[in-house]
């Protein structure tokens, strides 16, 4: 009997822990402290549900920081949530569902997978809750469902990476090459719109630049990228773009992708399109030691910051990286939500991006967007 009681208690304790664990997963709510502040712009207590992609990367901490700052400033209540990892599409849909059930004045959403969110989005529409997209936004959503987006134009950002990388080193290397050369593109997945656009922007721009210099370009690797890029798959091209996407988002598989690219003799550059890929490039390079700016080395181009990537840029392992403006993004999304909730006209805002290198990363304008 005693044993049974103990087991019942322990089971309850365990389930309790699990429930608490699930309930507060990634829940980092910034509660309203300025609600009573008469100077705040919002007359009534506006509440905004923000569904992010999680907090795995410090990038999201910076977005959270921006949102909280703006919410305090405007005196609105925000609830910032996100799934445990960027693979948890189903969890995110559930969070979106709970957000709608909470009947907020506006919802901000960075969808991991637009298709999966469709039902919830139309539900929000019929309940007249405006949805503002941020980060990768909610591409392909029904007309009018998303009132505005606060995002980095990821396609432009990818283009910027290609332009700067080309100017700094690639043009020279391609011109000097005696045979075909390979440029690797490491993408975390082929489902998230932001990741896809960063890849496509880079690929299309490289092709355009090479074309202007009289070089032919071909593409191989992941099917999604191969079919969506403006580049055709051809034989005997001067420049081969090789897109690697892991079967699962794990550090190990992405590092192995990087090693595979580094091991190909014709590889002259690798571009990693987010923090995960950039960190995997550092791990993958550890034993091979091929990244650098020398003529026999491989050019590394990264995206986003974080301690590891910042360090790689500083030491010259990577020639540079693109950073977004996460704090500004967080501020903008709250601002758009408040305006939308009040029924004001809102339109898309590009929160911008910058190219940073060892030389300019300490400049105030850049440093504010680099996070650990």
């Amino acid at each position, binding site marked *: 009997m005693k044993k049974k009681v103990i087991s019942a208690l322990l089971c309850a304790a365990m389930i309790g822990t*699990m429930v608490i664990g699930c309930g507060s997963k990634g829940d980092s709510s910034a509660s309203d402290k300025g609600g009573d502040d008469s100077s705040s712009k919002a007359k009534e207590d506006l509440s905004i549900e923000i569904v992010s992609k999680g907090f795995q990367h*410090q990038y999201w901490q910076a977005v959270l920081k921006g949102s909280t700052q703006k919410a305090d400033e405007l005196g609105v209540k925000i609830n910032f949530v996100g799934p445990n990892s960027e693979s948890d599409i189903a969890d995110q849909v559930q969070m979106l569902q709970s957000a709608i059930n909470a009947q907020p004045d506006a919802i901000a959403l960075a969808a991991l997978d637009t298709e999966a969110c469709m039902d919830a989005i139309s539900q929000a529409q019929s309940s007249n809750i405006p949805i503002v997209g941020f980060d990768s936004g909610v591409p392909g959503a029904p007309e009018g469902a998303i009132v505005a987006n606060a995002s980095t134009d990821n396609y432009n950002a990818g283009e910027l990476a290609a332009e700067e990388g080309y100017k700094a080193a690639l043009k020279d290397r391609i011109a000097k090459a005696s045979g075909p050369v390979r440029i690797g593109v490491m993408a975390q997945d082929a489902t998230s719109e932001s990741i896809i656009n960063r890849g496509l922007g880079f690929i299309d721009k490289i092709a355009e630049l090479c074309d202007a210099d009289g070089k032919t370009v071909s593409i191989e690797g992941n099917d999604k990228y191969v079919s969506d890029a403006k580049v055709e798959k051809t034989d005997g091209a001067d420049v081969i773009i090789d897109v690697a996407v892991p*079967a699962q988002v794990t550090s190990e*598989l992405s590092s192995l992708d990087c*090693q595979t690219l580094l091991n190909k003799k014709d590889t002259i550059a690798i571009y990693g399109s987010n923090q995960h890929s950039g960190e995997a490039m550092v791990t993958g390079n550890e*034993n091979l030691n091929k990244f650098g700016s020398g003529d026999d080395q491989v050019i590394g181009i990264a995206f986003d910051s974080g301690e590891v990537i910042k360090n790689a840029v500083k030491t010259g392992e990577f020639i540079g990286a693109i950073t977004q403006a996460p704090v500004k993004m967080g501020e903008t999304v709250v601002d758009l939500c408040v305006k939308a909730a009040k029924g004001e006209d809102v339109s898309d805002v590009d929160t911008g991006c910058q190219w940073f290198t060892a030389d300019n990363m300490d400049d105030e304008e850049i440093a504010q967007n680099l996070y*650990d």
Partner: protein
Amino acid sequence: MGKNEKKGNVFTNNPLVRAIGTQKIVVVLVIILLALLFSIMSPSFRKYATVVSIFDYSYYISFMAIGVTFALITGGVDLSIGTGMIASGLVGGYLITHQGMPVIVGMLASIVLGLLFGLFNALLIAVLDLPPFIGTLGTMMVARGLGSILTGGMSITWPAASVPQGWFRSIFKLTIGNVKFPLGFIIVILVVIIMSTFLNRSRPGRYIIAIGSNKEATRLSGINVVKWQSLAYIISGLFTGIAGIAYAATFQAVAPGTGAGLELDAIAGAIIGGTSMTGGYGTIAGTLLGVFVMSLLKTGLPFIGLQANWQQIITGLVLIIAVLIDVLKNSKRA
């Protein structure tokens, strides 16, 4: 086994083969074959750096697999090692980078957290008689949530190899000049020897095997089943913590919310290495060999130009074939 031995051929009657075990010899042959195949098909595979990489990515799985072998031998399983490992790596790293504690404290914290998961599993399974699958499934979820909560959902970067605090990375990979020595491999081998001796030569080890063979008979012969079954899960927990350190030393960052699925790599390694899913049989050396089959496949398949999804299919098929061999062997025995 007796029947097989009597009827055995020259190969199985060889005393050396009998001492090592046929399964292990088959696995060693598979490893050699795979290495040869990859070397022939891809010249860049035949490099020292590749060998170091295979070792790099095998340490954390090796530790998890060594630990889970004990749970498997009792006839149970431990599903919490994957997320438990990540939680251990997160908490240890958090103390170092966010609380400014010395690296050694972070490492100890990782091990202690791993032990706590082990203790919790032991309580659920050995004391409260929960089925191991259910009990450790619960712990797996708890560990996943706990890791995220304790670190505020942030991914954690342990000190880099370039700073003095990064010394712990040298435990696994020592860099002298431009040459890298996979020291971790020697450590893993030492651990295998220690744990093998413990499993086969010590009284507790033998009790653990006995529980897996027939728990009721073991209990009736006066052995404290609860105590020794608990020990198996605590060992699994201990190695979960150690694996957390190895993971942090290998990769740049430990990301919360990850880890689910990694336990299956470790369990697959143990199974390929000949550990019986129904308990009562398993060797630590076999587990290590099994882990190497998995690591070799993961590292080697990209070299021969296979797309990511094909790699998973092949790894899955290898696992099925390995278990199938075991099943067929057992049915013959019966």
